[in-house]
């Protein structure tokens, strides 16, 4: 339906609140028609970035381009973006269908036409039967779908999702993220999804943009970011990594790339601190030279062939190709 997906680009976008800098001159080109996740701890500037793209925060400096046109001064509804809010922000006094049709009503579309359009959107999110209900009468997952339908009815180029899954229980969260991914593929528009959950980002994103302290630490595909973190922050935040200081610099290595051998056989000697059974794997944490704690994920079968206890001396082995040098 959308002829050409436009590319969203941030050009040294900055947000200042008084003296504090929430977003510090970030530049990034989002892949058109892709699912991007802005990932970072709370307060890293990811939500401010999203809200600037949406037009709910004024850009202090820099430019936001959509399809080459500067949209940073436009009102939210004129940008070709739509936002889905963290707590869904459904209008409590309007029925589901009227919530979805709200933006059409604001444009003066007459009642029959806008309710027909809303019905189509509700079909897309599988909620047609509930169109007369009030938001209060819906479950969290249903409310989210209404919010999604309401955001999509304007046929945006870019859908902005502000922590869309954080209000759901863990089981529903996994189901909804599957639905979000499926919907994005069907619509073929760009989704930009803000989250602080690395598992959510890895599961959903074509492209992960990791932010910390108001800047982008690393951007790339989920595999690139997970397999080759470039900074210690990314390695730690994305999880499943050890950051080790070796004589020639700091390196990141995935926990499951570390093996356990006899004390004098490994690349490094360690003293086991703890053993944690995790089902498919056993997580073994060890103290190595320089008071550094390293954890190794050992397949369950291998571990119990040769069980270890805290206090045991072991050697840690790894393939040097799996060490990634960190820049910061």
């Amino acid at each position, binding site marked *: 339906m959308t002829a050409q997906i436009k590319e969203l680009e941030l050009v040294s976008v900055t947000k200042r609140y008084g003296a504090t800098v929430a977003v510090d001159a970030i530049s990034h080109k989002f892949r058109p028609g892709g699912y991007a996740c802005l990932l970072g701890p709370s307060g890293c500037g990811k939500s401010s970035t999203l809200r600037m793209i949406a037009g709910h925060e004024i850009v202090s400096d820099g430019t936001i381009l959509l399809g080459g046109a500067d949209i940073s001064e436009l009102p*939210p*509804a004129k940008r070709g973006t739509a*936002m889905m809010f963290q707590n869904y922000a*459904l*209008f409590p006094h309007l029925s589901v269908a009227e919530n979805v049709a709200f933006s059409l009503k*604001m444009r003066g579309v007459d009642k029959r036409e806008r309710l027909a359009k809303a019905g189509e959107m509700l079909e897309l999110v599988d909620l047609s039967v509930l169109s007369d209900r009030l938001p209060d009468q819906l479950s969290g997952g249903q409310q989210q779908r209404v919010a999604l339908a*309401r955001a999509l009815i*304007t046929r945006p180029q870019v859908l902005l999702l502000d922590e869309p899954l954080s209000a759901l229980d863990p089981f529903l969260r996994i189901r909804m993220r599957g639905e979000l991914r499926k919907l994005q593929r069907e619509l073929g528009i760009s989704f930009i999804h803000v989250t602080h959950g690395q598992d959510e980002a890895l599961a959903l994103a074509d492209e992960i943009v990791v932010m910390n302290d108001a800047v982008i630490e690393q951007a790339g595909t989920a595999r690139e970011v997970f397999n080759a973190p470039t900074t210690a922050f990314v390695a730690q935040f994305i999880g499943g990594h050890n950051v080790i200081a070796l004589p020639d610099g700091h390196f990141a290595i995935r926990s499951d790339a570390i093996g356990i051998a006899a004390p004098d056989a490994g690349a490094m000697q360690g003293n086991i601190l703890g053993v944690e059974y995790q089902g498919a794997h056993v997580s073994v944490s060890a103290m190595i030279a320089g008071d550094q704690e390293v954890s190794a994920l050992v397949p369950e079968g291998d571990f119990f062939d040769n069980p270890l206890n805290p206090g045991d001396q072991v050697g840690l082995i790894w393939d040097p190709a799996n060490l990634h040098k960190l820049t910061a």
Partner: protein
Amino acid sequence: MCPSHPAPESPNVLKNNTFVGWLMALPIMAVLMFFLVLPIIMIVIVSFWQATEFSIVPAFVWENYEFLFGSNVTYRVFLNTFKYAAITWAFTLGIGFTVAYFLAFHVRSLTWQIVLFLLCTIPFWTSNIIRMISWIPFLGRNGIANSTLISWGVIDAPLEWLLFSDFAVILAFVHLYTLFMVVPIFNTMMRIDKSLIEAARDAGASGAQILWNVIIPLTKPGIMIGTIFVVTLVMGDFITVRFMSGSQSANVGRLISNDIALLAYPSASATAVVLLLTVLIVIGILLRFVDIRKEL
């Protein structure tokens, strides 16, 4: 919504939620019974008593009501009371909504919201009557308003209708009761999730559209509570009308107070009962329009 009930076979009476609930409601029920319900019952009883020029006789007669409904004055006074209530309501709503809207949506910091809100309440640190009487030197024939207007050359002769007129009565009502509109509306507005306004803006709504489609519908319960306050206060008032109209206008409250001054208690009671029923009917009609339970 549904409180979980303990096992019904529990022998301990204190574990029975219904019983404990009634027990906890008992003090307020006793207070209301003694200070509200009992006096009203007394008034209803007295309204059926018989009065002569020099005595009041316990009886059950309808003559107080017959006299009330048979008199042309009653209808005119009730109409006047409704007129005061309607005009005062319109002005307090307009001013109250605007003030509340400003406080809730334009003042960003909570500190300033509290400061400005307290500022609104400062006039209430003095008594109603003092605030009312302070209008008299301002509005009088040689008062501040007239002398200022004359010195500016806006008028040549003092305006006679500024004081002791319906204008003065309504001015005083609006002054006295606007805060009763501001407080509940402000309270409801503060509960509106700010992201709803962003969502409306995201959907392309202009400021006026947000006001009409989001804020006003969500503020209706507050407007209704404020309306009930203002309407009941204005309809029950008698002192404002007396002072500000210079005894030239009447409302139901004055009818009752005149009867009391003449020791015509049965007649006063009958008027009071009719007024009470009228106000209850008005509130009943208002509550049909808006569900205020969410606010309570």
